[in-house]
């Protein structure tokens, strides 16, 4: 059943392509229906999932002469992320209701992107996973280059080249692993169980980890992300920050770390205080947290604030992975969901609720418009999303960051200070942008009334409502997700990792 998320998305894209031009307005309905169906499928699968089970969705021989299979499987971690994709997919369509220009193509590219993302989360064969991972790249380019804003062609090309270089690194690692294991199978289960030589893992691990890490916004390879997110149209930045960056983090955990667990082990010598790749990446993640937060603090463009905040939050995910203990890694997975929802929400507020009405994202220009008065719904949504993002209890961000911090406390006590600084800076940049964007205008009766803006539409309210509810559910009942994530981390797939370090 779950496999249909992929097929339906691609079929939807095909249907949109074939839709006659005079019926272009149907494109929205068609896209919304498609995403709702896929969301319903993921939700059903999530509810029916028995904990700890590795659900086989599809399994056919594909290229038998090379041992490549069309193999789709889902465990707790992938189901959690599939559910996230479903939610963001629906909301992305709701927030793109105002697209008029080349609407068919817009939603066609959108659905191809969505289908490929489903594919990556479901693939259990590395070749298949890589195929979907690469398909993601192309629609991203067109979504940004055609429907984007600020320096869109530059941003789109930069994003694509970064992604492609990342996947090139992954491809080298995958082919090397496939050949080293005897060229018999590309199934993740088989390769993760193969005892690769330690020195091989020592170079293959960083290669593949960085390759996926580029898409996850790993500092210093993150520079595509802010420019890409800012240039992208709202739905695309929601998908990009909400789901596509998670593909990178998911790849780090699911491929790099399970395939080459010994690559995380100590080198046996110390260089500049680093004893293993794990130390190196943990430090890069912390730098990402701090750098993203501090840069977000001085941005003039509202969307860049959110763009850099994503780098900071993705840093938490990568740091959580590097703790190598159960609570840290589960925290990272919860943070993937949490950041997916919140980044989607924040980009929706900035890109759709504010920018498409005011046509400026300059924080100093937004202030005098007194948006807090004019579009209170946008202000309310931003406040809620901001609070959730800075880690207020009751929202998803709190649970996730708490778990990661506890994990870090166990593994890297010395880094905890910097993480704390990052958290404080996180409060600061949200507060600053909220103040400047919504509540900066002096509220004197003598001022002329602010110019009226188009009212908030129903689809926007609905989208924002769904995302806020999702965040609250994750925040108040994290057990719902932890119940499936923990058994997944204890499954045979992660055995090498468990033996290796944690």
């Amino acid at each position, binding site marked *: 059943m779950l496999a249909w998320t992929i097929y339906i998305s691609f079929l939807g894209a095909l249907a949109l*392509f074939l839709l006659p031009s005079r019926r272009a307005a149907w494109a929205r309905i068609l896209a919304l229906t498609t995403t709702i169906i896929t969301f319903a499928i993921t939700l059903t699968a999530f509810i029916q999932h028995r904990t700890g089970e590795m659900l086989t969705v599809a399994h056919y021989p*594909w*290229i*038998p*002469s*090379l041992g490549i299979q069309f193999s789709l499987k889902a465990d707790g971690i992938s189901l959690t992320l599939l559910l996230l994709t479903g939610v963001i997919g629906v909301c992305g369509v709701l927030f793109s209701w105002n697209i008029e220009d080349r609407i068919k*193509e817009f939603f066609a590219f959108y659905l191809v992107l969505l289908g490929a993302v489903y594919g990556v989360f479901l693939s259990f064969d590395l*070749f298949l996973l*890589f*195929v979907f991972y*690469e*398909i993601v*790249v*192309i629609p991203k*380019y*067109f979504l940004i*280059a*055609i429907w984007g804003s600020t320096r869109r*062609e530059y941003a789109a*090309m930069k994003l*694509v*080249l970064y992604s*492609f*270089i990342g996947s*090139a690194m992954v*491809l*080298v690692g995958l*082919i*090397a692993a*496939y*050949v*080293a294991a005897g*060229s018999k199978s590309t199934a993740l289960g088989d390769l993760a169980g193969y005892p690769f030589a330690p020195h091989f893992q020592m170079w293959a691990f960083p290669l593949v980890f960085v390759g996926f890490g580029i898409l996850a916004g790993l500092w210093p390879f993150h520079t595509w992300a802010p420019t890409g997110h800012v240039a992208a149209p709202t739905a695309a930045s929601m998908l990009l920050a909400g789901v596509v960056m998670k593909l990178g983090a998911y790849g780090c955990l699911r491929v790099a770390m399970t395939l080459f667990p010994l690559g995380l082990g100590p080198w046996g010598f110390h260089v500049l205080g680093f004893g293993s790749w794990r130390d190196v990446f943990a430090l890069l993640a912390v730098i990402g947290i701090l750098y993203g937060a501090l840069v977000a603090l001085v941005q003039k463009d509202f969307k860049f604030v959110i763009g850099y905040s994503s780098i900071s939050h993705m840093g938490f995910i990568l740091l959580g992975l590097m703790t190598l203990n159960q609570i840290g890694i589960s925290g990272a997975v919860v943070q993937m969901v949490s950041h997916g929802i919140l980044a989607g929400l924040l980009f929706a507020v900035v890109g759709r609720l504010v920018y498409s009405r005011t046509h400026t994202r300059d924080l100093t220009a937004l202030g005098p418009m007194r948006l807090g008065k004019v579009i209170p719904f946008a202000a309310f949504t931003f406040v809620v999303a901001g609070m959730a993002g800075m880690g207020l209890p009751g929202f998803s961000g709190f649970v996730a960051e708490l778990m990661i911090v506890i994990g870090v406390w166990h593994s890297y006590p010395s880094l905890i200070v910097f993480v704390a600084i990052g958290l404080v800076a996180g409060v600061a940049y949200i507060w600053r942008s909220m103040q400047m964007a919504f509540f900066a205008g002096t509220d004197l009766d003598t001022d002329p009334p602010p110019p009226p803006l188009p009212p908030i539409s129903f689809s926007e309210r609905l989208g924002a409502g769904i995302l806020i509810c999702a965040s609250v559910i994750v925040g108040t009942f994290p057990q719902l997700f932890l119940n499936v994530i923990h058994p997944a981390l204890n499954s045979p797939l992660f055995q090498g990792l468990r033996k290796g370090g944690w």
Partner: protein
Amino acid sequence: MNVINYGQLLQLIWPEIILTVTALLVVAIDLLFFRNSRVRVRFLVAATIGSAGCVAAIIKLLLASAQGSLLDGILLSNPLTHLVQIALLVITSVTLFLSVDSTFTAHVSEFVLLLLLATTGMMFLVGSQDLLVIFISLELLSLSVYILAGFDKRSVRSSEAALKYFLFGGMSAAFMLFGFSLLYGFSNSTSLTRIASAIHGQPLNPILIIAIVTTVIGFGFKIAAAPFHFWAPDVYQGAPLPSTAFIASGSKVASFFIFFQVLVLGFAGAEGSASLLHFQSGWIPVLVVVAVISMLLGNVVAIVQTSLRRLLAYSAIAHAGYMLLAFVAHTQQSLASLLYYVATYALATLGVLGVLAVTEKQLGNDTIHDLAGLSRRAPFLSLCLAIFVLSLAGIPPLSGFFAKFLLFSALLAAGPGSKLLLWLVIFAIGMSAVSLFYYLRILKRVYVADPPAEAGEIESSLLLRVIVGLLAGGVVVLGCAPDLILTQILNAIHASGF
């Protein structure tokens, strides 16, 4: 000395005979009955007859006995040569139909005749393991192709292209013949297997090294590998479109195949090694250098091209570089990957040129800039163009990606733990990341840029749309289900005992 068995000779060259007879038939029918018809009709008739000949030859190949060899490999047939010959015939008939809409010449039958003769040359080329026959059939191919390149007599560029092609080609043929003569002097035979046994077990002497280098020069010219590529951009740009299509696809397939055979069979034992620690002279170090230069030069220079045809030429140089890596590995698996690569590459290139056949006619030139907004003026052709271009860039699930995957895994599997092969793979994959930049530039004009004001839809003939659509379908299907031809190739290689 063996005695020639003429019955066997006839058996072996049936397909070539069919093609030659078809070529003559085309000329006769065209000149006798259609002299006063419109050019399009004449092309249509000629292409139909020519393709019918190709189909007949394919059927003959499918029915022919699997193994056969005449005089120690002067002519031979085995499942592998059959497979390559069938691919060549398919490519030729596609090229024939691509030419239907062209208006560059009134000498229709001569054009088709030359195309079919060139194909005959390729068929002989593929089905031989003897230096003399290889050289003669290569010349039959080359001479026909030189004329094809200059067939547009009204265009200065076409003549320039033909002249350049001819001069470079003559020079490289001279080099090759010189190398072959040294080989003959060295081994007292023109048969590849005899030469190999003469080389075997001896240290490399200077004569052999010269022979290796001149052979690589000769074939490097045919496959447009750097630094023997100077003709390619001008010929791709100046030659009439169907000629370009033929040069870029069919001639590549045949040359790559025979180049591999000559090196791996003829120079077996003189491979050498290019790794730094165990350097040993032989043909592998030469090819590593040529491959790296081709990948680097092709990809970097393609970035600044403004003409789509020139861009294709430079990307062809880059792809030649990737394919040469299969020679470095020289295993059965790498031969399979080479054949899969070159066949799918030929499909994608033919497709791009098929789209160009429409746009050049309507827009008047082939600059990338003028493709602006094509996706709104010709949605179907644009989609096909996107498929071809992305396949060339190596994006899954298109066949170009699988070809690269197969090639690189064959390369790594050939020498487990070899640092050189690993670095070559890393370099090649890095270079294909570079290539995505210029391929996306094409698609950017097509999909992102707005069409010029008051530009209407682009008209294209149904025939061209069908051909382009079939090619695009082929690229997608072979990418999604590579096993369709991969098992054929692997079986053929095993059966031929390569």
